[in-house]
């Protein structure tokens, strides 16, 4: 088989009712790409017949690959496995529960070809419960946008289209799928947002509940830290250290002006030293992070040339890989 143009990655966890329908819908939707696409179903340790049904379909359709996990790892590792094993230049990821509509894919691919590195779906007409799903998700999206500097309206939407060479270089684990646009912007990727259809669940239960609020908070803190790697981890830790530092300096003047008052001066001085200590500790950790990144195999500057645009030059020009794109990302959203 020649190299396909498009790889569609679908993580499946206990979706035996949906697999066949899912497959048929994707095939129908990708009629314009007939013969030039592949589908990767990633069986995320399902305890039902998902894998058997999927391999049954794969036996008749050589363009369907089924990746079988040894156990359940979660949505992000499943997508990571699909992305690692995809062979096309363009990768599409989507949910396995039929809530995303594959008919949106051709439009998103067209958008990507306009010159974007990632096109994310926006479920503007979301068919989910308001209190437990939509409102928490809206708050989370606001916060993610604020923290990462990439204001995507719907980070939770799994329907996304990527350039494979950019995506394959990104670290991708835990529940990172929420932060893909922000992470890719680290490498200077151009992000576009396209409205997509969204259906209510037909079969089965929703597998991801409300219990992840505190997880999202920790994840945000984590993302903020790793995003600082591209520039200066020390600066990010200095910013955290600023508060105890200022406080201890303030105390210094209190102590200095009040040296004769016995016990209270000793207590103020103790707290001064404790807070100063904390500030120093935090700054030291910043340097440790700098060291870790410096010695690690991850080199974000390798992504920069992939996303850089070269105009009016020869195609095979050697790009300056020291391109520091920071977190500023051209961002557009398409209405309608």
């Amino acid at each position, binding site marked *: 088989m020649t190299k396909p143009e498009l790889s569609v990655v679908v993580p499946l966890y206990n979706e035996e009712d949906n697999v066949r329908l899912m497959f048929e819908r994707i095939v129908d939707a990708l009629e314009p790409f007939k013969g030039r696409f592949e589908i990767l179903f990633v069986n995320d*340790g399902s305890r039902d017949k998902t894998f058997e049904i*999927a*391999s049954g379909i*794969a*036996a008749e359709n*050589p*363009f*369907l*690959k*089924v*990746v*079988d*996990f*040894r*156990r359940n*790892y979660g949505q*992000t*590792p*499943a997508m*990571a*496995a699909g992305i*690692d*094993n995809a062979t096309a230049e363009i990768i599409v990821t989507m949910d396995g529960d039929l809530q995303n509509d594959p008919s949106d894919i051709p439009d998103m691919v067209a958008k990507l070809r306009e010159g974007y590195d990632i096109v994310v779906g926006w479920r503007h007409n979301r068919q989910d419960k308001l209190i437990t799903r939509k409102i928490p998700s809206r708050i989370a999206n606001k916060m993610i946008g604020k923290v990462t500097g990439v204001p995507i309206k719907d980070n939770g939407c799994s329907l996304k289209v990527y350039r494979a060479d950019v995506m394959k*270089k990104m*670290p*991708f*684990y*835990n529940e990172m799928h929420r932060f893909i646009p922000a992470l890719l912007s680290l490498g200077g990727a151009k992000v576009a947002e396209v409205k997509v259809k969204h259906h209510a669940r037909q079969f089965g239960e929703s597998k991801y509940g409300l219990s992840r609020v505190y*997880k999202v908070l*920790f994840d945000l*803190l*984590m993302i903020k*830290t*790793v995003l600082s*790697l591209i520039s200066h*981890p020390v600066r990010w*830790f200095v910013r*955290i250290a600023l508060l*105890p530092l200022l406080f201890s300096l303030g105390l210094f003047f*209190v102590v200095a002006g009040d040296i004769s008052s016995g*016990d*209270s001066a000793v*207590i*103020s001085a*103790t*707290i001064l030293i*404790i*807070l100063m*200590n*904390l500030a120093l*500790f*935090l700054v030291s*950790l910043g340097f*440790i*992070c700098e060291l*870790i*990144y410096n010695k*690690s*195999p*991850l080199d974000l500057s390798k992504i920069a040339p992939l996303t850089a645009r070269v105009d009016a030059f020869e195609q095979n020009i050697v790009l300056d890989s020291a391109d520091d794109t920071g977190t500023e990302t051209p961002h557009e959203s398409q209405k309608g």
Partner: protein
Amino acid sequence: MSSIDVTAIVPITERVEHVDQLILSYHHALAATGKSYEFLFLISPAWDRFKPSLQAIIDEGVPGKIVTFSRHFGEATAIQVGGEMANGEIIMTLTPYEQIAPEAITQLLDNLTDGTDMVIVNRSPRVDGAFNQAQARWFHRILNLFAEVKFNDMGCGIKAFKRDLLTEIRLYGDLHRFIPQLAHQQGFKVKEIDIAQSPRDAHRRVYSANTYLGRLFDLLTIIFLTKFNQKPLRFFGAGGAIALGISLLGLLYIFIERVFFDVGAADRPLLVLFSLLLVLGVQLGAIGLVGETIIFTHAKNSRPYTIRKIVNGEETPKDGA
């Protein structure tokens, strides 16, 4: 490299008893199964004196190789090295001292059928003294409180598993005891079978305080590695958030007393206590962030998943491997 059925790894690193006799019994038991097999003896320099007798056994016709380390690396490393040198489809780890009757090791191979990736032994019924049993019971009770999957005898060194298991987990330090947990985490099916404890295994085991402390940290390590492997911030952050929460409440209390009830704040030792708690909370969280940085920067080299197989495709090799 010709492929054979079973490689029996015998790490000679910690304790040795009746080794020649025992190896011959293992040899006869394996020969009786009709499978092809080899022995790998991995010797720490402290146990060098057993080399001639093992060499004699090999000369007598027991298929095997002897690897002598130049320093003491420990049992986990010995098993990892043995796994890399092994030609067998199935790897067995055998102890150079008798834990179960040597003839019983074939039961492990019988149980290592299609659906099972690893077979371990629960020495039961046990014949050793009440003290040994009590300390073992407490160790497993604590472990099973946190572990995702419950096993009853981590102390038995006799295990059998499929070869690809060792490529997915990494052993060092004292992690060899926890191969079953690590294997389960990577999605392998582990089965525990009951085999009677050998009377020779029954002597009283009292260890040094150092050893007990070591076991305690082994427990913490395995809980950390299996539950928070990819998310250090959740491990440290939970503790940090508790400390931070208490300290903020305390500081608020002092602040309210100062403003509304005119109780002095600056001369209260309580202020120092809550400041220390605040510092502790922030420090724990910050350590978690350093952990996250390590995971993030190395994520591309350590895949967050293991694949059983791919229908209509082949697995792409690991980056940088």
